[in-house]
C-alpha cells in the first residue's frame, strides 16, 4: 500500500474531479431535484457555480482547514453541494442521520466538534438549537429551507442562499484563498467522516481519505462499466456510506447525474419518472415493492391475474437467459443502439404473438383437415399449438411476448425499466424476492460491504449471480478467513482511523492493514464466491455445544412476507426461541380478505389465526433448517409475536434497521424468561417513544406457542 503520493491522473480530490467534469461535461445534467412539481436541473457548470458560491460564503464566515462541518437533511442537491464546498475549504463534511432524535445527534455533534452545522429545514434547526446550550462549539447554523424560520434569532443562524450571495459578493477578495485551499488537497486529506450506525455501543466516526473514496469509486465504476449517461436516484440517508459513494464518489468519477426526490413520500413516483439505470436499495425496499405488487395483483381482474401468473411462472426458468439487458464490456454511451434494440425486442414480442396465432390457425387447419386422426392424437398430447420451432427459440419468443404483456409494464410501474445494474446489500435478501426481480430481466446483484471499507468488499460480476452468495472480492480487495470463520479484508478503501478512538482503530485494523469485518463466512467451493453466515460474535454455541447462528435463522424467517422482523435467542441455552414481528401491510391485507377485524398492530398480532399462520411458517422453517446438519440445533422450539413493532426510536433497531439483539434481550427480559419456563402466556408492559420524543407505555398479554421440531430424537423415544 502506498500511503503517500498522488493519484495517477492528478485527480486526487472531489473538487478536482468536479473541475474535470465541468471541463468535460459542462452542459450535461449533474443534479436534478423535483420541486414545485417539475424536475429542476443543474448542469455540471451550474452546480460548480453554486458549490463555489457556498464555499466562498463559508470562507467569509471564517471556516478553518481541517474542521468538521455537520450536514443534516434529506437528499437535496444543496446538501451535496455543501459537502463538496466544505471539502473545497479544506474542511471535512460529516453527514448525520436526519431522523435521529436530538439526543443521538448531540453525541455526534459533540464528538466531531463541528463549528458549522448545515441543516435541511426547521425541524433539524430545532434539534440543533435544543442541544446547542450543551455543545458550545457550534457557532454557525445554516439552513436550506426557509419556511418557518422567520421568527428565529438570526445572530448565529443563516439562510444558505444568503451565505451564497455573500460568497458571490466577496468573490474577488476570497477567490485566491479558495484556489489555494483546493490546491492543498492531497490523496491523504480526509474526504469525509461518517458515523457508523452502531449495532453495539456509541457510534464511531470513520475517517475516509480522498484515496479511499476515489480509488474505490474508480474501481467500482470500472467494474460495472458505469458511464456518464447513468441516472441514479439519491434517496438513501446521506449519512450512510453507500449514499456518499454513489451520489458523490461514483457520480463525480463517472460524471453521471444525481436525482433527488421531491419528498421522502414521493420516492416511488419519482423513481418511476426518472427510471434510473443504476440503482441501489436495501432488501427491505425490494421486499416492500414485491409485497405491493402481489397485493395489487390480488385485486386485478381475472385476465390480468392469469397472465401475470402464467408469465411469471414461465420467467422463473427463462428470465436469466432471455431477460437480462446486454451486459456492457466497456464504458460506452450506446443511447441510440439501446433504443433500436428495445424497439427490436418489442417488435419481436408482438410479432411472435401474431405469428403464433396466424401460423397455428393456418397450418393447424390444414393438418386437421388432412390427418384428422393423427392430429387429434397430437393435439391431445402436446396442447393446442403446433410446435413449429425448436424449444429455445420458442422460449425466446415467448419471453418477448411476456415482455410486452407483463414484464415491461410491471417494470415500468416499479420504475425499474431502464435498470442496467442494481445492487442490494446490508442484509440477506430472500431467494424468492431476488429471483422475482431477476426473472423480470432486472440485473439485480448482491454486494457485501461496510463503512470501514468505503462500501465495497465483495460484489457479484454480471452473469455470475446467485441469491445465497455475496460475490467475489471487488477489484483491489484482498480477503482472508480466520480460523473462527471471521472474514478479514485489505483494500485501497480501508479507512484511515476511527476519529478520536485509537483503541478501537487498533482492535479493528492491524498494522498490516487487515480489517476484521465482524462477520463469519466462507468461500463457496467451485464458484469462489463468498457466503456470509452471521455476525462472528453472534455465532455461538448452545448448551450442548451445537452451533447457534441466529441471523441465519432470522433471515430465513424474514423471507416470509408475513414476518417483518425476528429475533432468535438460544446462545448457551437448551433450545432456540424467537420473538416475531408481523408485517402489518401483508398480514393486514390478509385479515381484510378473511373478514378479520382489527384496530391496531397489537390486536392483529394477538389474533389466534395469525398465530396459527406464523406457527406454520416456523414449522416449515424448522424442517428446512433440519436439513443442514451443522445448523439443525437452531430449530425454533417456542415463539411469541411481540406486541409492538421494533423501532429505532426505542433503540431496538439501529438507524439502518438492524436488530440490536442484546438491547432487546434486556428490555424484554420477562418475555425471554417466559419463553424458557414453559408458560403459555405472559402479561407485560413496555415503554415506547413516539416520533416527537414523548413516551408512553403498551400493556399486553402475549400467547406463547410451541412449534414442532424435526430430527432430534426425544429422550423418551430413545428409551423406548
Amino acid at each position: 500500500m502506498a500511503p503517500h503520493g498522488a493519484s495517477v491522473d492528478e485527480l486526487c480530490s472531489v473538487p478536482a474531479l468536479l473541475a474535470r467534469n465541468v471541463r468535460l461535461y459542462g452542459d450535461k445534467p449533474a443534479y436534478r431535484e423535483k420541486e414545485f412539481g417539475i424536475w429542476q436541473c443543474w448542469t455540471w457548470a451550474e452546480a460548480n457555480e453554486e458549490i463555489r458560491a457556498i464555499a466562498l460564503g463559508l470562507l467569509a464566515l471564517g471556516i478553518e482547514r481541517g474542521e468538521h462541518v455537520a450536514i443534516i437533511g434529506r437528499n437535496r442537491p444543496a446538501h451535496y453541494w455543501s459537502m463538496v464546498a466544505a471539502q473545497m475549504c479544506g474542511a471535512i463534511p460529516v453527514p448525520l442521520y436526519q431522523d435521529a432524535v436530538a439526543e443521538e445527534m448531540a453525541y455526534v455533534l459533540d464528538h466531531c466538534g463541528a463549528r458549522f452545522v448545515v441543516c435541511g429545514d426547521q425541524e433539524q434547526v430545532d434539534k440543533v438549537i435544543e442541544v446547542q446550550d450543551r455543545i458550545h462549539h457550534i457557532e454557525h447554523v445554516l439552513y436550506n429551507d426557509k419556511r418557518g424560520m422567520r421568527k428565529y434569532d438570526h445572530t448565529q443562524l443563516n439562510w444558505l442562499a444568503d451565505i451564497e450571495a455573500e460568497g458571490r459578493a466577496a468573490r474577488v477578495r476570497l477567490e485566491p484563498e479558495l484556489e489555494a485551499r483546493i490546491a492543498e488537497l492531497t490523496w491523504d486529506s480526509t474526504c469525509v467522516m461518517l458515523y457508523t450506525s452502531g449495532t453495539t455501543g456509541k457510534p464511531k466516526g470513520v475517517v475516509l481519505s480522498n484515496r479511499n473514496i476515489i480509488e474505490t469509486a474508480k474501481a467500482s465504476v470500472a467494474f460495472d462499466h458505469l458511464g456518464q449517461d447513468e441516472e441514479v436516484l439519491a434517496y438513501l440517508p446521506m449519512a450512510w456510506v453507500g449514499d456518499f459513494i454513489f451520489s458523490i464518489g461514483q457520480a463525480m468519477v463517472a460524471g453521471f447525474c444525481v436525482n433527488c426526490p421531491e419528498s421522502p413520500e414521493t420516492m416511488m413516483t419519482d423513481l418511476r419518472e426518472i427510471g434510473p439505470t443504476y440503482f441501489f436499495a436495501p432488501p427491505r425496499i425490494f421486499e416492500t415493492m414485491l409485497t405491493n405488487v402481489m397485493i395489487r395483483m390480488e385485486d386485478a381482474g381475472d385476465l390480468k391475474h392469469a397472465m401475470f401468473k402464467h408469465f411469471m411462472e414461465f420467467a422463473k426458468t427463462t428470465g436469466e437467459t432471455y431477460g437480462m439487458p446486454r451486459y456492457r464490456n466497456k464504458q460506452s454511451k450506446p443511447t441510440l443502439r439501446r433504443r433500436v434494440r428495445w424497439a427490436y425486442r418489442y417488435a419481436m414480442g408482438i410479432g411472435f404473438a401474431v405469428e403464433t396465432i396466424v401460423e397455428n390457425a393456418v397450418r393447424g387447419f390444414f393438418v386437421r383437415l388432412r390427418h384428422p386422426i393423427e392430429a387429434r392424437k397430437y393435439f391431445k398430447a402436446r396442447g393446442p399449438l403446433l410446435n413449429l420451432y425448436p424449444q429455445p427459440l420458442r422460449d425466446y419468443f415467448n419471453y418477448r411476448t411476456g415482455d410486452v404483456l407483463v414484464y415491461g409494464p410491471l417494470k415500468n410501474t416499479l420504475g425499474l425499466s431502464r435498470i442496467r445494474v442494481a445492487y442490494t446489500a446490508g442484509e440477506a435478501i430472500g431467494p424468492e424476492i431476488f429471483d422475482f426481480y431477476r426473472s423480470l430481466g432486472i440485473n439485480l446483484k448482491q454486494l457485501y460491504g461496510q463503512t470501514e471499507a468505503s462500501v465495497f468488499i465483495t460484489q457479484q460480476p454480471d452473469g455470475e449471480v446467485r441469491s445465497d452468495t455475496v460475490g467475489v472480492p471487488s477489484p483491489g480487495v484482498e480477503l482472508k478467513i480466520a480460523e473462527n470463520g471471521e472474514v478479514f479484508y485489505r483494500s485501497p478503501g480501508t479507512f484511515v482511523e476511527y476519529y478520536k478512538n485509537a483503541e478501537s482503530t487498533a482492535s479493528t485494523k492491524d498494522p498490516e492493514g487487515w480489517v476484521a469485518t465482524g462477520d463469519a463466512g466462507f468461500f463457496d467451493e467451485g464458484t469462489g464466491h463468498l457466503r456470509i453466515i452471521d455476525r462472528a460474535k453472534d455465532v455461538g454455541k448452545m448448551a450442548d455445544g451445537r452451533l447457534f447462528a441466529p441471523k441465519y435463522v432470522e433471515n430465513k424467517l424474514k423471507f416470509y412476507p408475513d414476518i417483518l422482523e425476528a429475533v432468535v435467542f438460544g446462545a448457551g441455552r437448551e433450545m432456540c426461541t424467537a420473538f416475531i414481528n408481523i408485517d402489518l401491510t401483508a398480514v393486514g391485507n390478509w385479515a381484510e380478505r378473511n373478514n378479520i377485524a382489527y384496530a391496531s398492530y397489537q390486536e392483529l398480532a394477538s389474533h389466534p389465526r395469525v398465530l396459527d399462520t406464523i406457527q406454520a411458517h416456523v414449522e416449515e422453517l424448522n424442517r428446512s433448517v433440519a436439513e443442514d446438519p451443522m445448523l439443525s440445533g437452531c430449530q425454533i422450539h417456542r415463539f411469541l409475536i411481540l406486541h409492538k413493532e421494533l423501532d429505532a426510536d426505542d433503540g431496538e433497531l439501529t438507524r439502518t434497521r438492524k436488530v440490536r439483539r442484546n438491547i432487546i434481550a434486556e428490555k424484554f427480559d420477562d418475555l425471554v424468561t417466559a419463553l424458557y419456563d414453559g408458560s403459555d402466556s405472559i402479561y407485560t408492559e413496555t415503554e415506547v417513544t413516539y416520533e416527537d420524543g414523548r413516551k408512553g407505555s403498551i400493556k399486553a398479554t402475549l400467547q406463547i406457542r410451541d412449534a414442532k421440531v424435526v430430527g432430534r430424537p426425544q429422550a423418551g423415544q430413545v428409551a423406548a
Partner: protein
Amino acid sequence: MTMASAEPYVTEDGRTIGGVVMELKNITLRFGGVVAIKDISFDIREGEIRAIIGPNGAGKSSMLNVISGFYTPTEGEVWFEGKPRPKMRPYQVAQQGIARTFQNIALFSGMSTLDNIMTGRITRMRTGLFSQALWMGKAEREETEHRAAVEKIIDFLEIQHIRKTPVGRLPYGLQKRVELGRALAAEPRLLLLDEPMAGMNVEEKEDMSRFILDVNDEFGTTIVLIEHDMGVVMDLSDRVVVMDYGKKIGDGPPTEVRNNKEVIDAYLGVSHD
C-alpha cells in the same frame, strides 16, 4: 375607522400587528324568533390570528358566516377596510379577498388534490370560456402561472405525494389540509378557518397548528379561526373573542381571557349556591 384603532397593537409575544382590517359593529343576527348573535362588536387587525371560542351553540359559526358575508346581520354593520360593507353575494366576498374552510369538509371528492386547489384560483382567472377551451396563447400562459402558484402551496403544505390522488381517497387529516390549500390558493387577505382541527389526533393537530402559524408568518395572512381545543387556541392566537349564548363574554389576549371569570364559568360551569 377611528384614529385610535389604526395604531399598531403589540401582542403578548412581542409581535406588532397592524391596523384594523374588519370591524364588526353591534351585530345582531336573528332567525325568526331565535337570536343567534346578540349585539356583538369586535375588530380584526391586519396580520393577527384571531380566535373565536365558546361552548356548543354559542353562535361561533354564525359569526363566521357573518364575517364571510354568507349571512347578512339583522342589525349592525360590518366595516371592511374602512368602509361599511354592503350586502353581497358570496362570490363578491371572495373577490374582496376573504377565503374560508368549512367545518365539514367541502371538497370535490372526485377531483385530484391539484385540481381542487386549482379551483381556489378561480377568482383570479381572467380568460374567457372560449379561449380556455382552445387553450392557446393567453389561456395557456395563465394556467401556467396559476399552476406555479398552486405548486408553491402544495410544497408549503407538504402534500406533494398526494398531488394526483383524488381527494375522496384521502384520510380526513389530509383532506383538511387540502381544504386549507384551496383557501390559500385565493391568496386571501382574510382567512376564515372553521374548526380546522376538529376530529384530528394529536399529531395531525400539531401539523395543522404549524401550518396555520406558518401561513400567518410567511404570507402575513390575517386569520380568524374557530376552535374547540383550548390548548391550541391559547397557543396559536394573538387575541381571542369568547362567545356564550350569542353574547360576547370576553375579548383580549389569551392569558387575559383565560383568567376571565365569566369565561371560566361558561366553560367549567358554575355552582349556584
